[in-house]
């Protein structure tokens, strides 16, 4: 395992104990022969009831092990695109393949299994208010059927990464906005997903912390995980310097 202490220097200045270890990345599931493109979207359109199109004829690819940003102004369709990838929304038209699987062909049980292989950071965090930080994060492991001891070890590790292990027993409503966002990130990473989809994961974080979180994603990515991050933060994109897919009014305007 590589050392990943370097990226945590900024955190250590804040006094959090973060030397626990680095993300290991790479999926534990889907070990079959995998295609080289993880996300394959063709002619995707999405229209919400009677309203205008949130997405219109979007075609894009994200390769295995790639790290890409999704940008665009408010209401461009970033969240809609990510939700379709989570199978939270169903497209009006077009085809979406993830890891070679056609999302339209998944039955209810398949959808559950598929979602368990993903890591998703929601724009509005989506933490369970009646569960503590620790319970919120460990839940994603529990449904995987991981042995109990391992569940707890891994959960503490991930909470350390995001600098929140001292808040493990707090309830989400007792956290600051940025802390909640970091819990959401911890939950997305705890199951060592093959694909991480993050919707504005640093909107409530200060620039230093945002960069640290991005480094966390980079570490995951270096371990083989594919990462797609929707963000407005030009500075951050500039700093990280990876491929950017720009949306506007539901269409791809730039895909460099």
């Amino acid at each position, binding site marked *: 395992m590589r050392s990943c202490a370097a990226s945590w220097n900024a955190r250590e200045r804040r006094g959090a104990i973060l030397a626990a270890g680095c993300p290991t990345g790479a999926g534990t599931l889907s070990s079959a022969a995998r295609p080289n493109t993880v996300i394959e979207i063709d002619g995707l359109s999405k229209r919400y009831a009677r309203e205008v199109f949130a997405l219109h004829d979007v075609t894009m690819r994200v390769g295995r092990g790639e790290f890409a940003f999704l940008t665009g102004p408010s209401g461009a369709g970033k969240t809609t695109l990510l939700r379709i990838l989570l199978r939270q929304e169903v497209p009006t038209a077009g085809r979406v393949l993830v890891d070679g699987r056609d999302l339209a062909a998944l039955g209810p049980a398949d959808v559950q299994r598929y979602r*368990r292989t993903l890591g998703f950071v929601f724009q509005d965090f989506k933490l369970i208010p*009646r569960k503590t930080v620790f319970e919120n994060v460990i839940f994603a492991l529990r449904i995987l059927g991981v042995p109990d001891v391992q569940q707890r070890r891994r959960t503490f590790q991930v909470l350390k990464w995001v600098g929140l292990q001292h808040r493990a027993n707090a309830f989400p409503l007792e956290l600051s906005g940025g802390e909640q966002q970091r819990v959401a990130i911890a939950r997305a990473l705890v199951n060592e997903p093959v694909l991480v989809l993050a919707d504005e994961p640093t909107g409530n974080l200060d620039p230093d912390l945002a960069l640290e979180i991005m480094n966390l994603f980079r570490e995951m990515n270096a371990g083989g995980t594919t990462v797609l991050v929707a963000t407005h933060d030009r500075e951050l994109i500039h700093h990280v310097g990876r491929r950017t897919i720009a949306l506007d009014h539901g269409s791809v305007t730039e895909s460099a």
Partner: protein
Amino acid sequence: MIAGLTYFVTEAWASVWRGRSAAILSVLTIAIAAFVLGLFLLVAGHVQRTVDQWSRSAELSVYLRDESTDGERAAVRNVLRATPSVAAVEFVSKTAALARFRKNFPELAPATDSAADNPLPASFEVRLGSDQSAAAVERLSARVSRMAGVADVRYDRRWLDRLVSLGNFVRWTGLLLAGVLVLAAALTVTNVVRLSLYARRDEIEIMELVGAPLSFIRGPFVCEGMIQGGLGAVVALALLRVALTLSAPRLSALAAGLFEVGRIEFLSGLSVAGLIVGGMAVGCLGGLVASRRIH
């Protein structure tokens, strides 16, 4: 499997515990439905038994002709014995009838004394079973009255009708009420579980988005329903027991006039078990129905 069950129960219990005041309210509501049902079972049971006792004391008298032969009398007795609605048959001779008359009407004793011969007929006094219908008694009466050696058949039709009707009435409205109350209990549980589900719809949505299996999401709700239903039934039974004990002196006075046993008895063990299991079943059903909404 065991792990899953433990998860359901812990989750359900945590849910009940965290939403304590709401849970207390809903358990109380269910308890009241169960309490009313239990109270009703209690009252209906006692009224039914009383009516049965009263009915049992209703009698049919078959008056025999003085000139009837022993064979004719035996035939009548056999017919009566063979009838299912007949509980007991007793022969009252002319002499016994006169003695009873004198005892019942002392004012008239001189009148019967002065008479040369005994004017009272011999009879069969028939005690009817508790399950007789008025029509059956009428048929029996018609049949026996046409037999050789029978002078007349008498029974207090008005009272018998009333008692049979009262018995039917209690049974019938009892069934109706019980049905409605079970429905009410089921609805209450459904309602409570549904609303607790509604209050946690965000949580459920999140679980779905994280890929939790359906059983992981539904299990706790079904369990919660069962816990609430069972607790409700237990609370109801405890309340009923306490209420009965507290009102025992008052009730005994009432009961003395009504029931031959002279005291109110608690529900049978079977009824108690039935109420608890029923409460849990109804709760389980409520949880299932409520969580059907999750797709």
